[in-house]
């Protein structure tokens, strides 16, 4: 561990507080834009969860994002007639569907001898490309044009003025992002998260401790898929439009860039990376034109080579949970069947 005194916790809290205050001084258009960036931030957290915590590099995270978006769109446009266009059902479907897909994909690719890290990345990259092509040619979901006119988030409990205002939508999205962040953080710092991190550091060793690493990987992948799907649903409700492009390789690799630039190992850094890169892009892409992508690509390479932890990774890293820092002193003989302190120690030394 680098330093005893960590700035991670106060900085994280300050960042969330700052996001809460944005609508007070920003104009309506910026707030709605920021609301969309926040959904990309959730997507980035989902990737950081599977990549930073478990060490599985997924090149197809947008598959889940896009599936969530499409499910939300299809439900609220009443293409699935039996739900009556309910947004709640849409959000639920958009979370459960991608989770299920991630579960199946995980089962398919991890079980048995499984795919090694690099091959998994390539397979997911190919999968994203195939999904995009299939989406372009499926008429039920709108083909090339995608789904248009998806209704914005509504407040069904209010009579009369049902449509949420820009600021209200923003707070719904921000609240979702915060809840997802806290939930993912809770998982990361729970015993489950310890096992996941142990798999990242050395899968064989973790398996020899008696953990079914495949099940853990599939579970983590499922959680990540659910997060991405929910983000997709929120994005769609704000953007009002789903096209095949958001399921494909383009967004998949973009989110990879955000997470790598922000910091793959820390949820908050990945989130901030996504929001900031999008934010900077909205300013610079018009000024720099085609040079923006060139610069981003080179900056990405530079980050990977020089700063594997990302720009914010070191800054926003939270201190380890107290129980990990000071493992309970257990008499040596009584320590049977509980490998957690050993795992925690292995993590600290790495």
């Amino acid at each position: 561990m680098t330093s005893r005194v960590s700035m991670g916790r106060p900085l994280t809290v300050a960042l969330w507080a700052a996001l809460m205050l944005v609508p007070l001084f920003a104009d309506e258009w910026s707030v709605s834009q920021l609301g969309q960036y926040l959904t990309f931030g959730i997507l980035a957290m989902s990737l950081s969860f599977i990549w930073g915590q478990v060490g599985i590099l997924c090149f197809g995270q947008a598959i889940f994002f896009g599936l969530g978006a499409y499910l939300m769109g299809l439900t609220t446009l009443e293409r699935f007639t039996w739900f009556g266009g309910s947004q709640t059902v849409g959000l639920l479907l958009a979370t459960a569907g991608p989770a299920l897909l991630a579960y199946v994909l995980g089962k398919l690719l991890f079980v048995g001898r499984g795919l090694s890290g690099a091959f998994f990345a390539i397979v997911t990259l190919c999968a994203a490309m195939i999904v995009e092509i299939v989406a372009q040619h499926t008429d039920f979901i709108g083909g090339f044009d995608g789904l248009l006119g998806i209704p914005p988030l509504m407040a069904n409990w209010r009579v009369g003025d049902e449509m949420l205002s820009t600021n209200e939508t923003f707070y719904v999205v921000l609240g979702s992002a915060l809840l997802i962040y806290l939930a993912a953080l809770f998982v990361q710092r729970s015993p489950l998260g310890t096992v996941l991190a142990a798999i990242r550091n050395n899968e064989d060793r973790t398996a020899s401790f008696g953990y079914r690493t495949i099940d853990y990987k599939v579970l983590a992948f499922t959680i990540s898929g659910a997060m991405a799907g929910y983000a997709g649903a929120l994005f769609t409700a704000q953007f009002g439009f789903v096209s095949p492009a958001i399921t494909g390789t383009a967004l998949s690799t973009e989110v990879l860039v955000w997470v790598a630039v922000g910091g793959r190992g820390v949820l908050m850094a990945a989130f901030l990376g996504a929001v900031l890169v999008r934010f900077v892009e909205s300013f610079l892409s018009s000024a720099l034109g085609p040079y923006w992508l060139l610069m981003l690509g080179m900056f990405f390479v530079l980050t990977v080579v020089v700063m594997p932890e990302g720009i914010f990774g070191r800054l926003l890293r939270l201190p380890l949970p107290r129980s990990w820092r000071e493992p309970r002193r257990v008499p040596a003989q009584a320590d049977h069947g509980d490998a957690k302190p050993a795992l925690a120690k292995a993590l600290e030394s790495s």
Partner: protein
Amino acid sequence: MTFAVELGLDTLSYSLSLLLVSLGLVIIFGLMNVINMAHGEFFLLGAYSVVAVQQLHMPYWLTLLIAPLMLAVVGLILEELVIRHVYHRFIDTILATWGISIALKQLIVIVFGPTSQSIVNPLPEPVHVLGVVYPSFRLFIMGVALLISFATFWVFYRTHIGLAIRGVIANRPMAASLGLNTRRMDRWTFAFGAALAGLAGAVMAPIMSVDPQMGGGFLIPAFLSIMVGGIAHLLGVVLGVALIGTTGTVIASVDTQVASQVAVFLLAIVVIRIWPEGLIGRKR
């Protein structure tokens, strides 16, 4: 009958050009353990070197020399600037080369514009082969691909350099301690792989639509071929390319391009699922 012959020739020409791309990829992967995501963009640079040569009103055949040389230099520079810093971080090589691919693609967009370029076919007259009229340039492509592939195999399995390369692949520390300069071999292998991709791009450019997105179209099947075939032996790539190329071309001819891409992907997934090491696995 003519349909079958034509399909066979199409399959052969597609598979052979895919082999050119895959060979470079698999040698780089085997020797350096680097998954080169920028390989599609090396192919792209090769294709655009044809555009540049055409704009300068020079004969097409010059590019067969220029493209590999240029890409070898590009490969050397990138290896020196980026790749060698991330050798020991396996996943990061994927990311770094992916970043390179984004930058290179965008560079092409800036220099040549985002739209597709048309290339004048240097061998416009068709020829009669086995009773069908077939574009002669495709036959030329097959010839070049065969020649280069055989040359690569010969170097790899019949020369002293090839022996050294295979030694490094089998056991890098041992090879290094026996006095092989692994650093220099990495550098030149990367340059050679890049040159192969560049040549493939230059050869394929006249029969493809040359646009900045064309690299990915070859990269994905090439990766699938490698995973299907396995990386233990160069013959694995040949097998993978044959399987992927044939499936793709045949299904595309009877059904749509979309069905063909989906089928190829599913086939690859099934094969990888059953034989994770590829069809020609590593001997243990």
